């Protein structure tokens, strides 16, 4: 394959890859159109015509189409919501890519294509969301390899094109009247440009580029630019200020699906009664009014474009200090890091302490989220103890989340409750369905809010119309996913059931919110420990009824349980690996924060530098040197950090010393005169040579002294003639021969005469007037 074909194929492939990545990120069909455009562009516009020019769309047509694309994007911008506005920009980039693909190609347009493909990747990064985006990372790495390869081949292509016969003038055809310089190409491989060393060089460039990219990404401090007001305090974990859900602050419908297939541990729970006896979580859950142990995360109130978000108007968490721990159930919990700063427990917490007995968390009164305090590790697993109510067996709790009367009477809280009644536009069918369900059960009397809510819950859970599934196939992408679930697909997991219930409750004026957390777990009787894994993640609904948040769960419980259990049977090496990768991706890429950087990078670096400062060698060089030698002579210690450091310092010092010695030897060798060339130096001739050198006349290697004298005479004749020394150079050359080769010793008067002659020449040649 020749260079041009290789370059064009690479460029079109990279463009197609960018289109595919954008399409997968957007989950729309428009970016996938780039694949077709790439195919057409490559076959049509890159095909050479008879006159050796490429075909393509004319500039006028391209401008017109560009205008049309701009109009289409503008219309999309003004007709859609926030996401639609972003998509309008995305689509504009895609349309422009199509147009450039079909245009007649120049180097600039090739580069434009490359720039547009980079923009597609960037837009794809914006569009993609959630934790399950590891594929994007893999695709981006592949894209980097492809892009570096394409740009490198492009550089070759342009360089070769500058020297190609079509753009150059052959020496014989140049205008004979004008001076001309004719450049050439020196290629050790003949006409071949893409060679094995080139391919390996590009691979090295890509790999090292990715390494630097990783450093950039991990080390750039996440000091986000505040979008409003002054810098917010970064010392307090962000979860304290803005509560997170169990999964994220924003949940897109379907995101939970992959979590439901993960076996990653989330928490371990041991329950103790007030008299320190082990308590079964299932029993305690039933006492609390739940069918299974329910670990509450946060409540999401705002629904926009298939995304649930938290209500932004929160208040500061209240401190949870156990006032009478001896009368409460104690929950000892070990929580793994699950991408959130929330703490989980069964029921409503009345106090939380860490292993040192200090207060460990606070309760967000609006959402009921428990957030950890800065004293606890923001990352990694944490241990804490929660004290919760001990319901009497004869008076079990109804499972509702109680809100303090002081809080619920606040206007802020009333506003919060009112916001949980908001129903987005475009859900008319859902509204109709909710009202129909309620009206079908209102035979003679009006249902209470709780009854109405229960009827809808039962409709979704037990009517048999809807089944539990982890499949996320969309039947009608034009309508809201919840309506798609309710009327078309009729299959979904807990997120869909919960979302449908929340929205249907809002349709009949009942404030409701979506709650995320975990439900169930594996109880180990021998250790009295409940093990909760990611597959136990769950979403349910809370409705504001009778001054409390009533827990409603529309998900078919049996089907869900079967699905959760089936995850264990479907476990494979690939799924484990995928889960691990997704976890790594989520922890280290999507959710990386300044706190984590501080913990993983900055602090260790600071400590390392500080440890260098504390090294013994600064206090006592001798003792330090001795310990250094000890490290070197004991191979067992080479694997320790200190030993590895000492070994590295030794090897680096040896390498530097060798390098220095080599340079030193070279410079000394260069300065040493060649002793084998033991010629006597004829002083007057040396002076003559120096004089000539000052006038930019240098004797060439193939030139004899006599020939050099003739050249000097010819060049300097006008000046020498003025002082009557035209024959001076020749005479000096003659005398040089006599002295150098004839071993003649010049008499004093002749030496003097030559000195005078050289003086005269010097004067004449250096004088400005001459």
């Amino acid at each position: 394959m020749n260079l041009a074909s290789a370059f064009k194929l690479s460029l079109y492939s990279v463009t197609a890859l960018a289109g595919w990545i954008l399409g997968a990120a957007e989950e729309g069909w428009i970016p996938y159109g780039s694949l077709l455009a790439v195919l057409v562009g490559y076959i049509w516009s890159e095909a050479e015509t008879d006159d050796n020019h490429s075909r393509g769309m004319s500039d006028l047509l391209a401008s017109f189409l560009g205008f049309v694309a701009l109009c289409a994007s503008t219309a999309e911008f003004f007709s859609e919501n926030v996401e639609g506005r972003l998509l309008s920009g995305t689509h504009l980039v895609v349309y422009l890519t199509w147009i450039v693909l079909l245009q007649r190609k120049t180097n600039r347009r090739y580069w434009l294509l490359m720039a547009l493909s980079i923009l597609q990747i960037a837009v794809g990064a914006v569009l993609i969301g959630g934790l399950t985006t590891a594929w994007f990372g893999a695709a981006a790495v592949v894209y980097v390899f492809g892009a570096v390869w394409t740009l490198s081949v492009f550089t070759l292509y342009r360089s070769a094109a500058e020297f190609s016969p079509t753009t150059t003038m052959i020496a014989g055809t140049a205008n004979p009247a004008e001076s001309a310089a004719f450049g050439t190409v020196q290629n050790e491989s003949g006409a071949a440009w893409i060679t094995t060393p080139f391919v390996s060089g590009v691979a090295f460039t890509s790999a090292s580029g990715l390494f630097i990219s990783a450093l950039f990404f991990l080390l750039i401090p996440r000091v986000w630019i505040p979008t409003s007001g002054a810098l917010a305090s970064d010392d307090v974990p962000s979860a304290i200020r803005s509560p997170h859900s169990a999964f994220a602050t924003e949940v897109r419908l379907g995101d939970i699906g992959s979590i439901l297939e993960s076996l990653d541990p989330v928490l371990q729970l041991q329950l103790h009664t007030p008299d320190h006896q082990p308590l079964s979580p299932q029993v305690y859950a039933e006492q609390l009014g739940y069918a299974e142990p329910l670990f509450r995360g946060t409540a999401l109130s705002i629904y926009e474009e298939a995304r649930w978000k938290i209500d932004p108007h929160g208040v500061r968490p209240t401190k949870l200090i156990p006032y009478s721990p001896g009368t409460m159930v104690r929950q000892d919990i070990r929580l793994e890091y699950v991408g959130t700063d929330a703490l989980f427990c069964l029921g409503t917490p009345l106090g939380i302490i860490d292993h040192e007995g200090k207060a460990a968390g606070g309760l967000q009164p609006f959402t009921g989220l428990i957030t950890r305090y800065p004293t606890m590790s923001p990352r990694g697993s944490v241990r804490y103890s929660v004290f919760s109510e001990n319901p009497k067996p004869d008076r079990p709790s109804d499972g509702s989340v109680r809100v303090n009367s002081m809080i619920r009477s606040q206007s802020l809280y009333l506003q919060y409750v009112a916001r949980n009644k908001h129903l987005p536009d475009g859900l008319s069918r859902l509204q109709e369905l909710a009202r129909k369900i309620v009206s079908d059960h209102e035979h003679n009397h009006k249902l209470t809010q709780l009854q109405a809510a229960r009827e809808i819950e039962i409709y979704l859970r037990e009517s048999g119309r809807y089944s539990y599934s982890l499949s996320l196939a969309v039947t009608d992408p034009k309508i809201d996913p919840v309506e798609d679930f309710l009327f078309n697909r009729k299959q979904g997991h807990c997120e869909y059931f919960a979302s449908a219930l929340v929205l249907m409750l809002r349709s009949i004026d009942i404030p409701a919110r979506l709650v995320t957390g975990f439900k169930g777990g594996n109880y180990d009787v021998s250790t009295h420990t409940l093990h909760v894994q990611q597959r136990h993640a769950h979403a349910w609904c809370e409705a504001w009824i009778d001054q409390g948040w009533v827990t409603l769960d529309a998900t078919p419980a049996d089907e869900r349980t079967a699905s959760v259990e089936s995850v264990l049977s479907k476990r494979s090496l690939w799924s484990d690996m995928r889960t691990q990768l997704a976890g790594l991706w989520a922890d280290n890429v999507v959710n990386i924060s300044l706190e984590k950087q501080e913990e993983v990078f900055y602090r260790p670096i600071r400590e390392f530098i500080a440890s260098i400062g504390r090294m013994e060698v600064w206090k006592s060089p001798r003792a330090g040197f001795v310990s250094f030698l000890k490290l070197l002579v004991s191979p067992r210690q080479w694997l320790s950090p200190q030993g590895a450091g000492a070994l590295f310092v030794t090897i680096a010092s040896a390498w530097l010393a060798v390098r220095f010695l080599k340079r030193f030897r070279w410079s000394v060798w260069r300065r040493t005169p060649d002793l084998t060339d033991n010629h006597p130096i004829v002083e007057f001739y040396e002076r003559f040579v120096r004089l000539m050198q000052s006038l930019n006349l240098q004797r060439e290697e193939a030139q004899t002294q006599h020939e050099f004298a003739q050249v000097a005479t010819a060049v300097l004749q006008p000046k020498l003639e003025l002082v009557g020394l035209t024959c001076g150079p020749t005479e000096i050359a003659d005398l040089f021969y006599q002295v150098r080769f004839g071993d003649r010793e010049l008499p004093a008067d002749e030496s003097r005469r030559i000195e005078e002659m050289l003086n005269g020449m010097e004067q004449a040649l250096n004088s400005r007037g001459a």
Partner: protein
Amino acid sequence: MSKVVPATMPRRPRWYSSIPALMVALVLGLGYSRWTVGMTLASRIMFRAVVVLFAVIGVFQIASALSPTRGTLATPGFGKHRMVVPVEGIVYLTIMFALFTGAMLTKSNMLLLVFALMAGPFVINGWMTFGMLQSARVTRTAPPRAMVGELFNVELMLSNSRPLMSIWIMSVRDTIQHAYENLTAVVLFARVAPRSSQVGHYQLKLMRRGRYQLGPLLTYSRFPLGLVERSRLFPLAGEVLIYPRIGRLGAAWRRRWLGATELVARPQPQAGVFHDEFHRLREFRTGDNPRDIHWRTSARRGELILREYQQNRDFNLSIILDLWQPDSARKEESRLIEQALSFAATAIVEHGRGCRDAILTLSASGATTFRWQGQGTSASLESLFDGLAVMNAGPARDTMSLVDDVVYRSSNSTQIVLLTTRSAGDPNPLPIHNPRIDMICLPDIDFERALIFEEPLEPVPDTPTVVSRESQVSLGMET
């Protein structure tokens, strides 16, 4: 052709230019613990970054100022490096900047990831280009002399001193400067393997007589990504001396030249035009001319001995070149000067070729005076051509004194030719009355018949103006 920065050396920074940066770093560093009280972690990190930035700038400046050679202490060879960001690089950087700003504003790690994926290859690109230039060494081998219109090669050798990294797609640009024109030539080296050299060449066809200065050499590359063009200057000077054009004399002029020999006053030996010098005595053979018998020797030896003569055309030639030109020379007059120099050089070359032992003399008068004497050997002619290469036309005030001097010095066997750029009808003609002098007025002769070139002699521009030309590229290749 890509844009290349001018070949000028950078100004060396002064040591005191580092004071402001160091002072700011010092003040901020001393006040760190006091001023960062109550600051957030992010603010403290930014504060530290600013302190480090100022300190690095200060140290770099002071290191550059104190280094014994320009910039070698801080960044070896940095002072000779140049960087140009082409449009592609600007677009790339703009996208990077937009992504970074967007990521910081929207708190998007994913956007920051794309930024990092762009930044990594960009940094590697800069490091590779800088490394390639650091390890590159260029030398030039150019012929010291050439003739006007002669196509010749200049060799450039690019060496790579690095043990592991190849040099890729590196162009070497040479500058060729003359008083009246500037040219550039580019040689592209596709690859130079580690610890090896490659020799490339460019071709020159120079149409002006005189000295052409070569250099400096500029190596530059955009490899691998084409986003940044870095260059390094090698102040490697060279020179090519361009001789006047040498052709061959036309048939008529050749005859005139030979005919002129008959007019030279010289003793004629006995045996006619071509048997003019006694060579040796030998025995008589049948068919020999009896008139050549040397009777005295024959009598002494008792056999017929013949006098043998040898043909000898060697006669000395002395050319006086009158390079007269008015103050405001026109195109035609400038052309006459070149014609005169070519004519004189050709005449001497041809005469030297025919008469190897003849003494050849050239005296030229123009802006300055030039005298040369030698024989037709190449070493001897070289000095003549060197002189003619740099000879300039002018008022030629010394012409008459040169004529007198040549006539006085030369023997009767020397043919004297006066070659002048003045017309015979010139208002101030040269007062030449000596019949020994063959005066040739160039404006009055048909020069195209007098001197024949392989390629027609093209006129030089009327007024000498500095012309700059980029190199054309030849020897195309498959891509």
